[in-house]
């Protein structure tokens, strides 16, 4: 089976279309970053409190929001997600290093609001640790144990919490869901003294201002170092202009990917930065494959114009470029579709980035090379040359 065979598309002839396409997306992204959504930073970078709560029934986000507002938690963002979950985010103003967990406790209090008065003094099974439950059982002593009370109740508590977390997905609908998991006497005692609130806190991230700032700085540095690393390596392996072209291309990809996050107002978290750094590497792969072929063809076709050589090289590697991009895209798509909520931003960045990265290695990187050469020719200078590896490892300059 073969999709592409002996294609001869004039890619360089279409460079103005490519330029227009890239400009539209980059400019839209930059405008959004400057004037619309800004760069929407996640809790990792801007600092703040993010609590993921799971409900036993479909939650009412608007109601939760107004309740939080009424309790004085202004600007809280309430975002419903899959599986009866709600993400509640507080900004950095409500997250001080003096009392890091205050916001979290306030959220818990507000959410417990309607059931709190009815169940005052009772033990909340959906928001307790196994240790807390073990202590509770130890105190009530429903089995009237004289020896080994501590280990026995600890084991019972662990069983109940496992049932809640691993079987029921983090929240119990009622104590009856524990039937068969614990001794009837334990269940009777729980029914008398405990209750299941309609939510359970699944995940908490609280980032103070200092760490947020630290992480922002590191993300910038990591991105810059990575770009600089590429520039140096490619400068050494090829000519410096190839490094510049590759880095400009990757910068273009990063800009459009971040722009897409800004346009959609999706938050950029630590894992999204990881995805972007991966893209820097990946997009470079594509560019290098094309450059390698250009280098090889310059040696073989000494008489041809650089533009023709570049076109031929892109066509020769087109099959590989599309296939690899398609296969990587398949795996990333699997991540996006099945990877779950936590990896959503991460896989989205990769989905966008692989599309853009593949496009740009054809439509941006190669035309930059040709444009540079034409610019130099226009100034009456020598056209760029290219070090070529010869059999005995010596470098030899070949005119393009």
């Amino acid at each position: 089976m073969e999709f592409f065979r002996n294609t001869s598309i004039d890619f360089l002839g279409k460079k103005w279309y490519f330029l227009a396409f890239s400009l539209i997306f980059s400019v839209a992204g930059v405008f959004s970053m400057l004037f619309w959504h800004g760069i929407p930073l996640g809790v990792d970078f801007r600092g703040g409190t993010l609590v993921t709560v799971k409900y036993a029934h479909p939650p009412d986000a608007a109601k939760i929001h107004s309740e939080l507002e009424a309790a004085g938690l202004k600007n809280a963002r309430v975002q419903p997600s899959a599986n009866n979950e709600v993400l509640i985010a507080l900004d950095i103003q409500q997250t001080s290093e003096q009392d890091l967990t205050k916001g979290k406790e306030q959220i818990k209090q507000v959410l417990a609001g309607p059931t709190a008065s009815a169940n005052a003094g009772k033990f909340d099974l959906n928001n307790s640790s196994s240790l807390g439950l073990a202590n509770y059982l130890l105190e009530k002593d429903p089995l009237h144990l004289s020896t080994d009370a501590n280990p026995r109740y600890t084991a019972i508590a662990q069983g109940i919490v496992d049932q809640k977390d691993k079987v029921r997905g983090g929240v119990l609908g009622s104590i009856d869901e524990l039937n068969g998991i614990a001794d009837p006497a334990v269940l009777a005692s729980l029914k008398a003294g405990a209750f299941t609130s309609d939510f359970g806190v699944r995940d908490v991230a609280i980032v103070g201002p200092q760490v947020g700032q630290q992480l922002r700085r590191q993300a910038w540095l990591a991105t810059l170092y990575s770009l600089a690393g590429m520039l140096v390596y490619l400068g050494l392996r090829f000519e410096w202009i190839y490094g510049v072209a590759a880095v400009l291309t990757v910068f273009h990809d990063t800009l459009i990917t971040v722009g897409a996050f800004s346009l959609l107002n999706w938050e950029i978290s630590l894992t999204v930065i990881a995805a972007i750094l991966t893209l820097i590497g990946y997009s470079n792969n594509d560019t290098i494959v094309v450059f390698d072929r250009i280098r090889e063809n310059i040696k073989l076709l000494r008489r041809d114009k650089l533009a023709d050589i570049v076109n031929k090289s892109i066509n020769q590697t087109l099959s590989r470029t599309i296939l690899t991009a398609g296969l990587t895209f398949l795996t990333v798509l699997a991540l996006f579709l099945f990877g779950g909520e936590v990896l959503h931003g991460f896989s989205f960045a990769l989905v966008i980035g692989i599309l853009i990265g593949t496009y740009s290695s054809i439509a941006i990187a190669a035309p930059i090379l040709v444009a540079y050469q034409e610019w130099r020719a226009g100034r009456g200078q020598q056209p760029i040359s290219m070090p070529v590896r010869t059999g005995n490892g010596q470098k030899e300059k070949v005119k393009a």
Partner: protein
Amino acid sequence: MNKNLTWKWAVIAATLLLFLFGIFGIPKDWTGKGLLASITDRIHLGLDLRGGTHLILQVQVNDAVNVDSDNAIARLREDLRTKKINYADMTKPDPVNHAELIVVKGVTPDQSSDFKTIVSDRLPDYDVTSGAENSFNVAMKATNLSELKKRAVEQAIETIRNRIDQLGVSEPVIQEHSLGSYQILVQLPGVDDPARVKEIIQSTAMLEIKQSRGGPYSSEQQALQENGGVLPPDSVLMPAKAGMRGDREAGEQWYIISRAAAVSGRDLRTAEPSRDENGQPAVRFILTGDGGRKFYSFTSAHVGDYLAVVLDNKVQEVAVIKEAIRDTGIINGRFTEQQVTDLAMTLRSGALPAGIKYLEERTVGPSLGADSIKSGVRAAVAGMLAVLIFMLVYYRWAGVNADVALILNLIILLGFMGFFGAVLTLPGIAGVILTVGMGVDSNVLIFERIREELRNGKTPPSAVEQGFSHAWVTIVDTHVTTIVSAAILFIFGTGPVKGFATTLVFGLAANLFTAVFVSRVIFDWILGRKQRGEALSI
């Protein structure tokens, strides 16, 4: 089969065995459950998959500096008194920003050289410089200051580790957080009760026994008023623990407490839960020999005075000294049994040298971790199957070759992680999936090149030869650039992101071996079995 090829097959088989051992070790039993247990024994799951608590805290190193300079002041006063050198005033002008600076004012000019000698003899860590109007600046030397701060962080890590160990958490991470200043990273897999952990870490348990010079007062203002607006020298106002006297309605209570301590947590030999004379839970402590002597000389000099037990700058108990005490005492203060156990434990594990501030807290509930594993594995299997099937359809028999290489790639990747005890996080699983996608790139590059060479009329053996040698240069370039960005991620990232970088680097390194070496051996083997001129299935 030629001899060269046999040797290469042996290398591949040995690699396969080695990395299978890396994944499984020697399993205890060969059932599915036993195998799974031995995998999880060797490849550790990250916090995001297991659930657990992640904290970043900052050591308030300034506290440690203040303790040191307070002691220096106490020593200096003592020495100046015995040497009969007069001075008007000795203070720390800026204990928040420059806790290392002591200013001594009003030393008479004819005694100033004696003063300097005493400082340099008795306080070797400090430098003395003359200031305006007969004053002297006594400041800790810069090297000693940074050493002291560094030691404070090390000691804090040690203390926190001791305390966490007593909680019985498996595989805790407690280390200096290299990305910030004076920060400590604490990761506790499987701990579902961060509040209790924080309580145990946070209670600095800075136990001090000091002299109480007045109180209780109902407010700071009242304390000042009753003392004519000024506190006695070297004294501070300190709040008492709420409801200290068993009287919760009493409101705030303040005491005037001496700045220097008679004995502190460092003089403690041991502490254990006990009961006081009323049968209430209390902590009994025993002092070290040295501490006991210090305590004896203090109490014998202050019979009839009041003694305050101060814990984390809160007065726990005030009692009159009836007679000289040697080395045992009791701290009571309406504790619950749990509090007494925790307090005794924190006292035993040593006092934190400085206070602690929390900068970041993350808790992943075990249910979320379980969901993440499910979806991560589902995505991995779906992505992998899609790639494997595509390669089979598109390249036919050569696709089998690529698929074998890919599976071996995965085995080596997981084996690496097993050997290095690497941590698998959710982004790490994503890294595994990406490795599949990017790893297959090498195969595509080679196969496309072989097809091209075949189209150009080369025979299968020479097309394979050319395909591999041309693609090799490109593969090295692409791998180096990706490994560079992954390595930068590893250096800058923490937790989950680090896990991602780890899998990506190992995966791509393994790919160089599988896609190039293993694939080539399989091709050579197939070519060797074919008749001359027979077509290659690709």
